[in-house]
């Protein structure tokens, strides 16, 4: 499905990272694999350090910390927020929406449209699409898009399949109208028939959490996880990305009339370095144009990784210049999405530690 938006822009993005850092080498003793193989995994995937919340820290804690920082630094006024979108798979509660919790704790006005969106790896592009749609309304001038997850709390430390790549983060992105003429093209596709490739089986109404769902089981591959934990079929996800993402982007570029050479950076979701480099090879994109260093520095924080990649690699360029970028997110759902837009004149683009 394709979308076109006019006169909208990203005004700034602030990344909140838990200060607690873990290293792969320390953690690999948890895995039931020979050390040499785990070191090989580190080398191939680009695992090194990641950021995890302390026990009990929730998405709203990271989001409120970030928003208060923006208020204190006068980068955003609380009363200016017309909509608060939160994209997460790890809400504070099943009900109420965590976006309402954040609104309440910050004392935002009643005229705030709060919405939780249950999406993950494609969540930045999906959140932007929603934000742009809201900005079509006369009453909406500024949208705060929060991509935040604390997936480390839903991952088995004894699952080498996924544990070493997951990190926690919140990205707070301010989206507003653009006075200069700008056109944004987006495309998104979904396939629910493959939803089980990336899922947390227990915890919803289908399979509520119970003592049974918390039992660690060997899935037959030396990895131990419970039904309460996030499961990822790594090879299925790898295949999905290699097969579905390149044609989506090629189609979008053709539709928008923008050639691959005209794109300064391909800022994609950051599953791991291996998958991104294979994607770059397939699409014949030079590695220098496709950042792949988020996982080795902070871990894969699902929907927050695109703004993290921007803040880590392009902060100076997007604050002082103007870039043509191709954003792409892909993962749970399954969902895959891409967006072509100009990114520049950002009022803020940085990373802060929590607490």
């Amino acid at each position, binding site marked *: 499905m394709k979308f076109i938006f006019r006169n909208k822009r990203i005004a700034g993005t602030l990344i909140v990272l838990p200060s607690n850092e873990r290293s792969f080498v320390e953690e690999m003793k948890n895995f039931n*694999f020979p050390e040499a*193989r785990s070191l*090989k*995994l580190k080398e*191939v995937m680009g695992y090194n350090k990641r950021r995890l919340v302390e026990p009990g820290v929730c998405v709203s804690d990271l989001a409120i910390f970030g928003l208060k920082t923006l208020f204190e630094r006068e980068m955003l006024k609380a009363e200016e927020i017309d909509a608060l979108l939160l994209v997460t798979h790890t809400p504070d509660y099943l009900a109420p929406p965590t976006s309402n919790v954040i609104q309440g704790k910050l004392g935002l006005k009643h005229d705030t449209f709060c919405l939780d969106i249950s999406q993950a790896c494609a969540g930045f592009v999906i959140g932007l699409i929603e934000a742009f749609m809201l900005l079509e309304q006369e009453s909406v001038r500024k949208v705060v898009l929060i991509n935040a997850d604390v997936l480390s709390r839903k991952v088995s430390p004894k699952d080498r*399949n996924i544990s070493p790549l997951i990190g926690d983060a919140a990205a707070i992105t301010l989206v507003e109208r653009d006075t200069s003429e700008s056109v944004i093209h987006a495309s998104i596709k979904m396939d629910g028939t493959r939803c089980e490739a990336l899922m947390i089986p227990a915890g919803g109404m289908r399979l509520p959490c119970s003592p049974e769902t918390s039992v660690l089981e060997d899935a037959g*591959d*030396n990895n131990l996880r419970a039904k309460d934990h996030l499961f990822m*079929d*790594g*090879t*299925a996800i*790898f*295949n999905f990305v*290699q*097969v579905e993402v390149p044609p989506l982007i090629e189609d979008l570029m053709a539709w928008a009339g923008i050639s691959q050479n005209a794109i300064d950076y391909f800022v994609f979701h950051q599953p791991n370095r*291996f998958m991104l480099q*294979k994607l770059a*090879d*397939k699409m014949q994109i030079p590695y220098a144009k496709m950042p792949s260093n988020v996982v080795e520095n902070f871990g894969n924080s699902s929907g927050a990784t695109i703004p993290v990649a921007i803040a880590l690699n392009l902060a100076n360029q997007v604050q002082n210049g103007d870039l043509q970028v191709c954003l792409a997110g892909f993962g749970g759902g399954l969902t895959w999405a891409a967006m072509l837009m100009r990114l520049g004149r950002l009022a803020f683009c940085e990373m802060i530690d929590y607490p």
Partner: protein
Amino acid sequence: MEEFLKKMAKILDVETVAATDDLKSFQTWDSLTVLSIIAMLDADYGVNFKAADFNQVNTIGELWALVKTKKNK
């Protein structure tokens, strides 16, 4: 086939491999190796493998035969 054997030896982290070698007999046979093979087959041979495809092959020669079958489809 020779080229394929060289690529397999590299992924399996050994000097050489033979078509008769059992995939699961290698010390380095794990999910990372499976993923590396899938990536190599996609990039170099343009064929798409699933992890489950490896259940129907035992030896490197059988894997090569499956690559050729998929390529001709």
